[in-house]
């Protein structure tokens, strides 16, 4: 019984760390403009819309975060193997991983923008200097929280994987969850803020991202502050719930019956199905159709 209570405590801590990591990951990828919304940042100059947004093209969030977290975990593991205190090891490992991330971010911005010279997009050095450190800071929070979570899962809950491999697994999952949840909010709501609310962006408007902001010219820090209001926390909750349910059902129910976690998992999936269906029906009922049903079947 004590084991279960200890396990639940660790699970709660891991869930909290995962929530922070998810939120930081999403805000970081929105400040750096990584992943699918970045294709619009790339497209805009080709359509004649010059901008001052950071264009961080590093392969998309799941593999990129797979690398940063695995790197942070690997360095932390190496430091721990050299008998350095675990907390210091994780901090140092995350810091070095963030250095790598920052370098990749700068080379991505310079490379993509220099290759767009034909369309007249200049390289803005002040954007490079100011955004890079901010993305690095958010990435540090995300990486540190995830590596710490992995370390807890291994040393306190007894998972067989070594730390770097677990870092790889959760890094890719973090990137996938954060990217899926946060990208539409940043892409549609912030990049295309001038389009009508409540509808998708029509294909004819592609590339016409918002470049002149509330006061002055928009840069990526403005995007970060916006997505930190909903996109970031939503991604955090998404990843936090994933980690929490994954750990909780094993820690609590495995003692009673080895099939316990499976059954609880199925029940949780069904609960989420009901929630999702409710949201979908709520939207249809409260938002209503865009056009009357008979006219729209073209």
């Amino acid at each position, binding site marked *: 019984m004590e084991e279960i209570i200890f396990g639940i405590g660790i699970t709660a801590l891991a869930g909290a760390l995962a929530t922070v990591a998810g939120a930081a990951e999403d805000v970081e990828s929105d400040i750096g403009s990584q992943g699918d919304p970045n294709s619009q940042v790339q497209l805009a100059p080709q359509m004649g819309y010059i901008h001052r947004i950071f264009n961080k093209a590093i392969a998309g969030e799941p593999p990129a975060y797979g690398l940063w977290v695995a790197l942070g975990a690997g360095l932390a593991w190496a430091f721990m193997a050299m008998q350095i205190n675990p907390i210091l090891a994780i901090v140092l490992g995350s810091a070095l991983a963030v250095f790598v991330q920052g370098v990749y971010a700068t080379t991505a911005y310079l490379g*993509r923008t220099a290759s767009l010279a034909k369309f007249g997009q200049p390289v803005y050095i002040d954007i490079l200097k100011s955004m890079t450190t901010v993305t690095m800071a958010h990435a540090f929070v995300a990486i540190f929280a995830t590596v710490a979570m992995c370390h807890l899962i291994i040393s306190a809950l007894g998972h067989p994987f070594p730390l770097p491999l677990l870092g790889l697994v959760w890094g890719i999952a973090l990137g996938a969850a954060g990217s899926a949840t946060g990208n539409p909010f940043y892409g549609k709501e912030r990049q295309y803020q001038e389009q009508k609310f409540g509808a998708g962006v029509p294909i004819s408007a592609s590339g016409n991202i918002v470049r002149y902001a509330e006061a002055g010219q928009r840069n990526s820090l403005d995007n970060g502050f916006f997505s930190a209001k909903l996109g970031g926390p939503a991604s955090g909750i998404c990843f936090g719930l994933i980690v929490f349910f994954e750990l909780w059902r094993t820690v609590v129910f495995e003692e009673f019956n080895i099939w316990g976690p499976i059954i609880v998992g199925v029940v949780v999936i069904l609960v989420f199905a009901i929630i999702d269906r409710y949201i979908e029906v709520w939207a249809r009922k409260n938002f209503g159709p865009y056009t009357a049903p008979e006219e729209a079947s073209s």
Partner: protein
Amino acid sequence: MSVKIEVGAGGIPHNQILIYGLVGSVILIYLTYLNTYMQAPYFAFFGGLAAVVALIWGTDTIKHLCSYGLGTGVPSAGMIALGSGVIAALFGATTGPFAPIVTVIVAAIIGAVAGLMANAVVRMDIPVMVVSLIELAIVGAITVLGLAAMACGTFEFLGMITGQISFFGFTITSYETSLIGGSIIAVIFMLGAIAIQHSFNACLGPGEQQDRTLMLAAECGFLSMIVVAIMSFAFIDRYAAIITLVIAIIGWLYTYKKYIELSKRDAYAWLDAQPILEPKGGA
């Protein structure tokens, strides 16, 4: 409306880079064998240099493949390269002194099968698909083998699975604190997967120039070398690791500086704290 992949023309022909890349990286990996010869891991850094050469070659291969219309984007090519490569590298490592040669052959087999499946079964029908996936698998395998050899001092399997931990001054061999036991091979895998596709992905656009792209590939290679050198402190003698780290840092600083110069050369304008330069005639 989405981004079109365009490739700049000109530069060194791909086949030339292929030959230099293949021969150069295999020779450099074999130079790490001097460690076993001299019973001291001071030559481990050759493995990292082999990975850098392989990454330069691989970047040009991805560029070559994408110029023929690879539809679904650049990062997946990196994933499939390293996925095949890590299997080949670990298999090849078990053959002792023949590891680099066997790794190249096995990687070629796996890459060929993946390419044939992609072209003939999934019907991607890209002319250079099979050759490019063979090259990419070999590049991935050499990158993994080279960085692994740099981290633990040898490219042989038995060396990768045994490490040492010290207990109150006594050192005992342990399987847990080894390159494979501690799963550092997973970090090397992911480093290679991002590095191999980053240079072409980051320099994508109508103004892509081969020398800038390849300089970025070298920079990614040296950056990966820096972090693996730091991790190698847990596996090899401290002074050997310091040598590797210093070489990696020097290489990285040089390639990074040159990359920034080349970007300055190619950019439309290099502005500091200037407003948006609307194109003539408006948007």
